[in-house]
C-alpha cells in the first residue's frame, strides 16, 4: 500500500492525472503537486476549516480527505471559484467590510459562506454564525464576516426576479 496510485479527476475545470501515495491527503496534493496554494493548512486535523474545498459540489476539509478518494471527482478550490466569477460579489463584500485581516482563513471562509448562500437565500446572523462555526478566524472576531455574508445574501435576493 505504499506505492503511488494513479488518480484522475477534475480540478477547477481542468482534467488532472496524477500518481499519488495512498497516504497523501487532498490538501497536500492540491498545494504540493498542483501548486494550488490558496487552500491553506491550519491544523491538519479537520478543526480549523482553512483547508475547505468543494468536492462534487459539497464542501469538505481537504486535510481529512485522501487524494486517492478524489479519483473521478470534481474538486473546486478558491482559485477556481475566483476565476469563474462565482463569488465575485461575496469577495467584494468582504473587501468593503474589511472582513479579513491576515487572510489565512479567508479562502476557507469564502468556501463555507458560499456553501450557505447556495443553500439559503435569507440566512439571519445567527444562522450565518452557526454555519461558519467550523471555520476559525483569529483576526476579525467574525462580526465583519457575518456582515459581509449578510450583505451578499441581501444583494443576491434583490437580483432575483
Amino acid at each position, binding site marked *: 500500500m505504499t506505492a503511488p496510485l494513479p488518480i484522475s479527476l477534475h480540478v477547477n475545470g481542468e482534467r488532472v492525472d496524477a500518481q499519488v501515495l495512498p*497516504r497523501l491527503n487532498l490538501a497536500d496534493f492540491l498545494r504540493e503537486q498542483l501548486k494550488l496554494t*490558496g487552500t491553506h493548512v491550519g*491544523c491538519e486535523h479537520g478543526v480549523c476549516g482553512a483547508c475547505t474545498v468543494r468536492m462534487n459540489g459539497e464542501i469538505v476539509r481537504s486535510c481529512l480527505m485522501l487524494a486517492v478518494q478524489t479519483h473521478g471527482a470534481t474538486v473546486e478550490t478558491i482559485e477556481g471559484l475566483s476565476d469563474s466569477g462565482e463569488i465575485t460579489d461575496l469577495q467584494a463584500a468582504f473587501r468593503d467590510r474589511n472582513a479579513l485581516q491576515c487572510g489565512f482563513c479567508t479562502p476557507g471562509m469564502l468556501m463555507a459562506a458560499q456553501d450557505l448562500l447556495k443553500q439559503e437565500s435569507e440566512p439571519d446572523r445567527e444562522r450565518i454564525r452557526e454555519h461558519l462555526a467550523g471555520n476559525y478566524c483569529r483576526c476579525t472576531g467574525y462580526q465583519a464576516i457575518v456582515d459581509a455574508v449578510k450583505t451578499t445574501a441581501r444583494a443576491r435576493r434583490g437580483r432575483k426576479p
Partner: protein
Amino acid sequence: MTSSRANPETLSALDRPNSYIGKVVPRPNLDRLMQGRGLYVSDLELPRMAHVVFVRSPHAHAKIVGIDAGAARSMPGVIAIVTGEEFASVITPWVGVLSHLKGLKSAPQHAIAIGRVCWQGEAVAAVVATGRAVAEDAAEMVSVEYEELEAVTDMRTALDPQVPVIHSSLGDNLAFERNLDAGPVDAAFAGSDEIVEADFVFGRHTGVTLEPRAVVADWNVAETRLTIYQGTQAPHMVQNIAALHLGLEESQVRVVCKDVGGSFGIKVHIYADEMATYALSKLLRRPIKFVADRVESFNTDIHARDHRCWGRIGVKRDGTIMAFEIDDLTGIGPYSMYPRTSAIEANQVVNLVGGPYKTKNYRARARVVFQNKNVMCQYRSVGHPIACSVTEGLVDLAASRIGMDPLEVRRRNLIADDAYPCASPSGLRFELLSHHAALNKLTAMMNYDALRAEQAALRKKNVHRGIGIASFIEVTNPSAAFYGVGGARISSQDGVTVRLDAQGAVICQTSITEQGQGSESLTAQIVGSVLGVSMARVRVILGDTDQTPYGGGTWASRGAGIGGEAALQAAKILRKNILDVAAAILQSAPTELDIANDAVVKASDGTARIELRELARIVYFRPDTLPPGIQPELMATRHFVPRNYPFAFTNGVQASWLEVDTDTGFVKLLRHWVVEDCGTLINPQLVDEQIRGGVVQGLGAALFEKCIYDERGQLTNANMADYLVPMSGEMPDIDVGHVVSPTAETELGAKGAGEAGTAGAAAAVANAVNDALKPFGAIITEIPLTPQVVLTALRRI
C-alpha cells in the same frame, strides 16, 4: 465622535481636499488574499529546498543520555540529522536578558538542546529530508534515550528550597523581581473604611495564529549571504539576531516577509527552531524550510499570561479609592525568551495596575519564576489584561462592599479629563486621556439604566444576567524606552521612503510590516492625502530588509503612530520637491501651486496646471528642458521616533452584557461595547476591526483558552480540538465608539489601537459574571470562566 483637537480650524498637511484621513477606504491588495493568491511562507518553494522536522522531547525535564540516528540516516530521502553539539560550530547560544530590567537572569539557550531538555517540546535533533513527510518518517526512527529529571511545574512552589533549581548556575528559579512602593500606602489602607482583597488567577494561553510559524532559510555560499523568508513582525530584528549568532555581518542577511497568517505577538520573537533552520541552511548550503505543525505550535509558540496575582484595595464609604496593592507571580518556562525577554509582562502588570485612577498610593511586587513548561513571552496586549482584570475586579469588589454602583465608583475615581498631563504612581506619563468622556459615551451606547432595569426584571424570572465594566489604559507608540535602553537591537524608530515614478505614480517603502492590521492601507492613505495623489496610484512595499528603510516593524501598537508619522513627513518633503520642480516648469512660485487629483494645480482656484505623469516625464526623460541649476529630487525619506513621551498612552472602557446558566455553568455573551481613544483615526473601519478582533481574543482568554499542563509538565490539550478558541457561533456583536484625543507629539496625532480590545475584554466579562452571580454570593476571580469554575463557585459541584 467627540473631538478634543484644540484647533479644528487649522489646516494641517492632512486636512486637505480629498484627504483619505478619517475615511473608510478598502485596504489595497485584499483581492490577492481572497483569491488564494497570496504568498505565505508556508507556500514558498525554492530550488533544491529541503525540509526540516524536529525530534522533540516528550519529557518536561530530562538528561539526554544518547541519540541513535543510524536507522533514520539510512532512509531514502534523508539528507542530514543534526544534533545540538553539531550546531555549536555554526550558531552561538543566547541569553534573554536586558539591562534595564535590573536583576533579570536567564541561562544560555541553544538552537537544539545539548545534554538536557527543559520542556516538553524542546528540540533534540533536526531531521532534514527532501520532503516533509519523509523527514517526519525519519524523525520517528531517531531513538533518543532520556533520563527523566524532576520537573518544576507549579510556579507557587518554584522558589521553595526543596524544589530543584532548573539552571544550577543561576542559583535559584527566580528570573526577575520588581518592587514598587509609591505614596503612604499603609496610612492609606489604615484610613480606608473598607479593604477588599482577592486572589486573581489567569490561565496560561497562546496565540494560535492560523498559519503556524514558518521559515525558509537560504544560504547562498557563493554570495556568502543568507536570505530568510519568515512570517515575522520585525524583519530588522531578525536580521540583527541571525547575523549576530551566525557570525555574519548584517549586510550578509536579508529578511523577506510576504504575507503572514496571523501574528498577535507570537511572531515577534526569536525561536530556537527558527535559529536552527538558519544554521542548517548554512551548514547544508541549500534552502531549508521549517513549518511548525499544530502540535508543535502549541508546544513551542510562546505562551502568555499564567499569572497568580493577589490584590487589595482600600476604599472610603464615599467611594474614594485610597490605595492599591498587588503581589504578582508568573511562571515563564525554563528560559527568558530572546531578545525581548520574558520579564516584560510582569513589569507591565506592575506599571499598569491602578492606571486609570487618581490614587497615588500603590505598592506592588512581581516575581517571575522558571519552570519546566513551554517558554512564555509577550503576546497581544502584554500585561494589560492582568492589570486590568486585577484593577477592575478590585474596584467592583470595593463598590459592592460599600453598596455603590460600579459606574458611580468609577466616575468618582477616574483621573479627570482636564488633569493632563500627569503621571501614575508607577511613573507612567500621560499626555492626554479621556476616561470620563469614554465612560459617558459607553453608558449612552449601552443604555446602562435600561439594561439595569432589564436585569432586575429578568432576575425575578430566575434569569441571571450581568453587566461588567472595565476601564483601561494601553501602552502604544513605544520609544527606545521599551527595549533599546536595555541593550536590545530592536529599532524604535521607523522610516519611510516615497518616490514619484516615471508615470507619476508613487512608490512607498516603509519599515513597518503587515500582518492584516492595515499597515499598507494607512501608509497609502497618509501618503496619498499629503501628496494629493489617489490611493490607487500609491504602491506600498514592506517586509524586506533589502528594500525598506531600517525600522522596528509592527508590534506594540506602533505601526500607525510611528510608521504613519514617518510616512507623513516623507510625503511632505516629496510634495515640496514636486512643487519646486513644477514651479520651475510652469514659471510660477511653489507657494502658488498645490497638488490635487494626481495633478499640480493652481492653489487659488484648483485649476489643473500639469499632471504628475507629465511632470515625471519631463524630470526623468527631458531634464534638458528644465532651467539651469535645477536638480529635481523626486524621492524623499524621513524617519520618526517619539522623543517627548516614552509611550503614547491611550485609554478606553469596555462593557459586557451576558447571561449565566446557573444549572450548567455556561456563560452566554449577549453584547459587548468598547469606547476607546487612539487619537487621530486614519481609517475608522480598520480601527474598529482591530478593536473587535482584539476583544474576541480577550473573550477567548476569559471563557475558553487555556494550556492545560499536568503535574509532570505535559501539555494535555496541544491540539485545536481540545484547546478551545472563540468560534463565530458563540461570539457577540461588538459595538465600538471613539473619543479622539490626538497626541501632540506628532503631526499625525495617531496613537495605537491594536491591543485595546484584548486589554479589557476579560475584565469586563469577569465583572459581568460576578454581577450576574450576585444573588448567589459567589465571586469568581479566575479565568477562563469555564462551566467547572462557575459551578464550583456556585457550590454546585
